[in-house]
């Protein structure tokens, strides 16, 4: 298992190199540059702009910049932000925790609503309850996220005054609620659907009949036999969902002024702060790869049939 983990981790390397090459090419040919955005509302003098470009090495040919970038990357150095007076490493380090908090809370919401909903739906397959809960679930993915977030803001902060509209606060719980719901609802829907399909599949299995022939109650069968066997499928979906969740933080964090990777990434794209964008994307992909590795390793724990060498 250790060997497997190490091998998987080694497989990250070509993926990351591939992604970094694609992203590097894409980002470094974007029209406009960071120096033009450095002034914000204000215009900067031409000589300052030229000076900045030179300081950042934007006058060098693309392949030279790529080689420098890869050399630094090999040392774990993501470079220096163009516009922020910080190293990209430090910048990202300060942003990972908020994003992780948000994504994990969203995932928890998705799991705690999605799985029971899927179960409910599957156990009442074909009834109105099934249809209704699936429509509820699908509704979660059918709304543009920023729209959902705005509606939640309108309802729960403007009207009810329960939660703050946006921001991070001191990292307290109350600021987390609305963004986490906004982010989690989409994944909730997908998880509910996966759970439903998985439960329906498992219910058809022979060993469920065996379990029933033992005289076990339905509840016990569902809890012990059905749930455990659906877990692999649910986990796979959850793993993939976590990846796309982190991608969606781009919108949710922007909307809720959440100081995480997503909002950093968006802002940096618009400002052409390329080192930050590259670092941010790398971070997101790394998170995705790690989560999926963890999911694969969890299979081992859940399913004794799976053994990694």
């Amino acid at each position, binding site marked *: 298992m250790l060997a497997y983990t190490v091998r998987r981790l080694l497989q990250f390397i070509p993926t990351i190199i591939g992604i970094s090459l694609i992203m590097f090419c894409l980002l470094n040919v974007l029209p406009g540059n960071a120096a033009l955005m450095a002034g914000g*509302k204000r215009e900067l003098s031409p000589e300052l702009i030229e000076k900045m470009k030179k300081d950042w090495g934007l006058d060098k040919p693309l392949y030279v910049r790529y080689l420098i970038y890869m050399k630094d990357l090999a040392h774990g150095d993501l470079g220096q932000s163009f516009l922020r*007076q910080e190293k990209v490493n430090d910048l990202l380090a300060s942003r990972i925790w908020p994003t992780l908090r948000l994504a994990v809370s969203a995932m928890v919401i998705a799991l705690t609503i999605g799985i029971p909903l899927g179960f409910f739906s599957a156990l009442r397959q074909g009834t109105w309850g099934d249809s209704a809960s699936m429509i509820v679930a699908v509704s979660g993915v059918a709304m543009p996220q920023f729209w959902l977030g705005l509606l939640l803001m309108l309802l729960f902060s403007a009207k009810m005054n329960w939660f703050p*509209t946006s921001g991070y606060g001191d990292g307290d719980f109350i600021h987390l609620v609305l963004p986490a719901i906004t982010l989690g609802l989409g994944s909730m829907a997908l998880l509910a659907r996966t759970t439903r399909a998985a439960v329906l599949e498992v219910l058809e299995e022979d060993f469920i009949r065996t379990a029933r022939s033992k005289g076990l109650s339905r509840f016990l069968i569902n809890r012990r036999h059905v749930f455990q066997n659906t877990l692999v499928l649910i986990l796979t979906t959850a793993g993939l969902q976590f990846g796309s969740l982190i991608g969606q933080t781009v919108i949710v964090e922007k909307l809720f002024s959440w100081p995480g990777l997503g909002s950093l990434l968006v802002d940096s794209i618009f400002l052409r702060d390329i080192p930050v964008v590259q670092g941010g994307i790398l971070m997101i992909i790394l998170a995705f790869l790690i989560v999926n590795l963890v999911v694969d390793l969890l299979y081992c724990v859940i399913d004794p049939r799976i053994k990694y060498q």
Partner: protein
Amino acid sequence: MKKFCMYLLTAILMTGLMSSDVFAANSGGTFKFCLPYGGQVFGLDPHKSTRTQDNIVELNIFRSLYQWDATTNKPVLALADKVVISGEDKVYTYSIKQNVKFHNGRNLTVDDIIWSYERIMSKELASPAAVDIRIIKGAKELEQGKVKTISGLKKIDAYTLEITLSNPVDPSYNLYKVSTAILPKEEVEKKGAAFTTNPVGCGPFMFEKWVKGSEVTLKKFPDYYEKGLPYLDKVVFKIMGEGAARDIAFKAKELDATIVGANQYLPYKKDPKISKNMIEVAEMYTRLMVFNLDDKNFADKRVRQAINYAINSKLIIEKYLKGKAFPTVSFLPTTSPAFDSTQKGYEYNLEKAKALMKEAGYEDGFSFEVLCTTSKSYGVGVIEAVIPFLKKINIEIKPQLVEGAVLAERARSGDFQALTWSLDSGPDPLDALSRFHMDNPRTSRNYPGYKNAEFSGLIDKAAKERDYAAKIELLKKADAMLKEDAPLWFFNYNKAIIAYHPWVHGIQSVAPEMMYQDLSKIWVDAK
């Protein structure tokens, strides 16, 4: 006796009136303000900060030699008690205040000012303030690395500084900017790169904490040099780029004051509670459409004028911007010292526009593409509103949405037919109009590629003019000429509004940028 009583009464009343300002001001409390320009604060080293958002915070941590005075609408001395001008208006001798302390407790002296200005000019820094310090004699040489010090800066004694300028210009418009703030050398050197996240200045507030991307907190600096100031114990800047979010936060009292977006303006104005506590100013940003004068369609002045006549800018301001802008006269805004109140802007006159188009031989019109961003008050929405107006003079206008970075690049390279944007038009009217000088290429902000020898002559003359009133007159003339020539479609001057809750006092109208509020004089009622 009766008379005496009258005097007494008057005296009491007078003191009462005066004290309403001084004594009624309530010390203590926290003020929650917003940072509305995007989702980030980039850094708090004022010498490196290029962005307005960062400056809003820095302004309250740091002090420069001058500072903006909102009541007189111009820069005034801040760190100095007085200045003596001599040597053909090139030598400025400042008596620096002796009670100015940095947040680390050390007294500010002339050495700090010299060190700060030299830091700005150092080759490595790429400071946006370099352009401002460059007016000092010898600054350029330092920048080029030829010398180690700026020859124009001379320490007379610890609290007397002599600055020699290379040309006779008023340095106040340069040295009031927060990017020319005076920094304590030892803190900058000790902290190195970390200074930007943990700044130390000599302003009214000390840095307390910065939650990246979310908020910045400052606390009162008790040893601030202006006696009794600041009133507030604490200031929290909440980063809120979304207008809707600011609106909700303000109504939920999470913000004590907020900048009002176009969509909130009308409802706020209708709200009897909020409307009482709103302060408006014509900000020194002019919103306009830049015509590329190298494009043959715009070569004829009459076409440009026709466009200005054909668009009902006032209606667009009223309906689309919900009145949250001031109609233009020319380039300089109403708050500019060189604004000519006798002048009138282009009125909506379709007949005249049609006639001009016919005269110019463009009766059948043409079509052009205009670059625009997503900005509400000078972006694609404005162009959408313009479409039907220009259709009436047979001009088809096609919006091309681009990002800010792309627009900025294409504006500088001339790769556009027209673009719509917001340009700085102050606070120094000379600087504002200079951009259209014929010697300036597009890379030096002359985006239309405007080349008018007469206009440029006026600018040159104004630059040399020592008499303030005469200088202003020349600039007024130049501004009028710009209007007549219409290398731009003059759309609006931004109406910046801050709405605040009734317990907030002391918000001022700051024309260069409404959000540049000096919070040291703001106070809140005890709750």
